[in-house]
C-alpha cells in the first residue's frame, strides 16, 4: 500500500467520487481559484470546471442552505466550511433544515450532503479560529458526525459520507493534513458507526478521535516499545452514530479508561463517552474514567499560553501513569 498524506487522500477521494457520480459537486469559499484555504481541493477546478467546483461568497448560512436545497433535488453537495469556527453562521440550516427535512416531511426527501471542515487549535489562530465544536453536532438526531484520524480512515469514511443519503458532518483537523499513512487502493469504504481498536492493550484503554487519536496511538506505541504499560487505543471515528459495543468491550478487557479529547472538557464529547461506559460497563470499571481535555478558556494567541491551554502528549502520559493498575501488575 502507498503512503499518502491526509491532504492528498482527501483530494484523491473527492476527485474519484466526482468522476463516479456527476451529482457530486463541491461548494465553498476559496475552493476553486484559490484551491482551498488548506489546499484540499487543489487542481479540482481545473479538472472539473466551475460548474462542479463552486466558489462561494462569504455567506455560510446562504451556501450551506443552498447545498441542502440542492440535495433535496438529488444532487450530492460536498461543502467545505473553511474552518469549523465559521459553521456558527450556518447552524440554522444544519440544525433546523438539513437534519430535520427528511423526518419533518414524513420521509419524502432525503438530504444527501457532506459538510467538510477542519477544526482544531495549536497554530496561534486565537480564540475564534481554534475551536472544536463536534459535541454540538453529535447531539443532533438526523445528522451523522465523522472524525477520522488516519488517511486510510479518511478515504473510507469520506467515500461512505458522500454516498450516504443523509447529512454528514465530516470533521478534519488542521494538524492532521500533513500526516502520512498507508491507504488501501481501490473503492475502499468504511461503514459509519464503527469504532476501531487501533492498538491492542491490556492495562487500560485510551478512547479518542481525530488528531488526538493519532497522538494516542503514538504514545501507546512508545509505551509498548519502552515496555512500559500495555495501552489499548480505541479510535471512535464516528461520533454519531456511536459504536457503544466496541468501547464497552475494550473496558471489559482493561477495566480502566481515559478519554483523550481536544475540545473543552465540560459538556464535551468525553462526557458522553464516560456516561455511555458507566451505563453499559459499570461493573467492569476498576477506576473512574478520566477525561483528558483542553482547558476551558477562549484559546489565547500568545504561544506559551496556547500551549498551556491545549491538552497534549504530556497530559496523556501523566493520565496513563496515574490511572495504570501498578499494584495489580506486580
Amino acid at each position, binding site marked *: 500500500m502507498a503512503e499518502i498524506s491526509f491532504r492528498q487522500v482527501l483530494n484523491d477521494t473527492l476527485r474519484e467520487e466526482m468522476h463516479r457520480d456527476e451529482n457530486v*459537486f463541491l461548494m465553498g469559499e476559496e475552493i476553486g481559484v484559490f484551491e482551498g484555504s488548506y489546499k484540499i481541493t487543489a487542481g479540482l477546478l481545473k479538472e472539473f470546471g466551475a*460548474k462542479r467546483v*463552486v466558489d*462561494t*461568497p462569504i*455567506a455560510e*448560512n*446562504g*451556501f*450551506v*442552505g*443552498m*447545498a*441542502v*436545497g*440542492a*440535495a*433535496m*433535488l*438529488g*444532487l450530492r*453537495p460536498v461543502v467545505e466550511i473553511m474552518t469549523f469556527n465559521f459553521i456558527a453562521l450556518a447552524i*440554522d*440550516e444544519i440544525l*433546523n*433544515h438539513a437534519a430535520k*427535512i*427528511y*423526518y*419533518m*416531511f*414524513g*420521509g*419524502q*426527501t*432525503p*438530504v*444527501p450532503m457532506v459538510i467538510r471542515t477542519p477544526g482544531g487549535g495549536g497554530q496561534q489562530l486565537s480564540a475564534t479560529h481554534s475551536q472544536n465544536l463536534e459535541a454540538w453536532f453529535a447531539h443532533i*438526531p*438526523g445528522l*451523522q458526525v465523522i472524525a477520522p484520524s488516519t488517511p486510510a480512515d479518511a478515504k473510507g469514511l469520506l467515500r461512505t459520507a458522500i*454516498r*450516504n*443519503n*443523509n447529512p454528514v458532518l465530516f470533521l478534519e483537523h488542521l494538524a492532521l493534513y500533513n500526516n502520512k499513512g498507508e491507504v488501501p487502493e481501490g473503492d475502499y469504504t468504511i461503514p459509519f458507526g464503527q469504532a476501531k481498536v487501533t492498538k491492542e492493550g491490556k492495562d487500560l484503554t485510551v478512547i479518542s478521535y481525530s488528531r488526538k487519536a493519532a497522538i494516542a496511538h503514538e504514545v501507546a506505541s512508545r509505551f509498548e516499545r519502552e515496555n512500559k504499560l500495555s495501552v489499548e487505543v480505541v479510535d471512535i471515528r464516528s461520533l454519531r452514530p456511536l459504536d457503544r459495543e466496541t468501547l464497552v468491550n475494550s473496558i471489559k478487557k482493561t477495566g480502566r479508561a481515559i478519554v483523550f479529547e481536544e475540545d473543552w472538557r465540560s459538556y464535551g464529547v468525553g462526557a458522553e463517552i464516560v456516561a455511555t461506559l458507566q451505563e453499559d460497563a459499570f461493573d467492569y470499571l476498576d477506576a473512574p474514567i478520566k477525561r483528558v481535555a483542553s482547558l476551558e478558556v477562549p484559546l489565547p494567541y500568545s504561544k506559551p499560553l496556547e500551549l498551556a491551554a491545549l491538552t497534549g502528549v504530556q497530559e496523556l502520559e501523566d493520565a496513563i501513569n496515574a490511572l495504570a493498575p501498578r499494584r495489580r501488575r506486580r
Partner: protein
Amino acid sequence: MSTEQQKRPDERDAIVKSISRVVTLPEDEDQETLVHYYSQMLLVRRFEEKSAEMYNKARIGGYCHLNLGEEATVVGFCAGLGPKDYVYTNYREHGYAICRGISAKTVMAELFGKETGCSRGRGGSMHLFSVEHRLLGGYAIVGGQIPLATGAAFAIAYRGSDEVVVCQMGDGTTNGGPFFESLNLAKIYKLPIVFFIVNNQYGMGMPADKGSAVPELYRKGCAFDMLSERVDGNNVLAVRDAMRRAVNVARGQHEPVLLEAVSYRFKGHSVIDPDRYRNEEEVKQGRAQDPIPTFARRLLEAHLIDEQGLDRIEQQVEREVEEAVRFAEESPFPPIESLMDYIYAPDNVESERR
C-alpha cells in the same frame, strides 16, 4: 420590468392603496379560468375559517397561521406557475398547498396530525410538503426556506432542466440575513428563481414599514441589480400576470426576480393571536379590500357568472371543506411504532432525480 419601469401600461399591477377598485375584466381571459380562480380563492377562505374552528376545538395543535385576506395573492401565485415548477413557502402555506393541487383532505389531515396527511402527520400546519405536487415544504424558521429554494434553483441550473423555483416569504423576512445572502447568490449564479414577498403589512405585531428601512420591499432588489416588481396582492390577475412575467424571465434568461405582492392580513398572526395591537380603522380599511367579493363583482359585471353560479360554488366549496374535515377525523394517527422512522434515509433510497 426593472425597478425603474415596474408600472405596466394596463395597470394590472398598479397598487390600489385604500379604495378597492373594480377593474373590468380583460377580453382575453376565458370564463372557466376566471371562475376557477374565484372558487379557489373561496376554497382557501373557507378552508382557513374551518382551520380556525378546528384549532379552537383542539383538533389542530401547535401554531396555525392562516391565509385569510391573502387569497388573491395565493391563487394568483399558483396560477402563474407551471406544473413542474417548485414551490418553497413559509409556515403560512395552507392555501398554497391546496392551490398547488394537494387535496384539502390531505392538508386537513396533516393539520390533524394524521398518517394520511401530506407530511404523514409529522409536520403539521407549518410543514406541508408534497413531492408529487412539487411543494418542497412549508418552513417555520423565518427565512430558512430562502437558501433552500436558492439551492433547488441551483440544482435545476446544474442539470440544465427548465423548471423554476418560486420562494414565498413574508415582509418581515426581508430584514434578515438569509434573504439578502440568497438574493446575492441567486444573482451571481444566474439561477432560475422568483423570490416572492407576501407583504401582508405585518410580521406578527411589527408593521412592515417599521422593521424595514425601505417601505417598498421590492426595492431591496436594487442592491443586487435584480429585476424587481411590486404588484397589488388583492388583484388575482395582476398577481398571476406578474408571476408569469417573473417566471418567464427566470426560466428563459436564468435571471432571478424579486416580486412583492401587497396584501393584508385579515386576522391575528396565528389563530391564538387576539390581534389587539392594530388600529381598528386600519383593519376595517384593510378588510374592505377583501379580494373575494371584489372579484365576484367583477365576474358578475362581466356576466361570466350569475348569483346562482356563485351559490353553487359556495356549496361545492363548503362540501369540499366538510369532506376534508371528515376525512381528517376518520384518518388514523401514525402508529407509535413508527416514531423512529424517517430519521435517516436508508442507503437504498436513491434520492429521486426530480
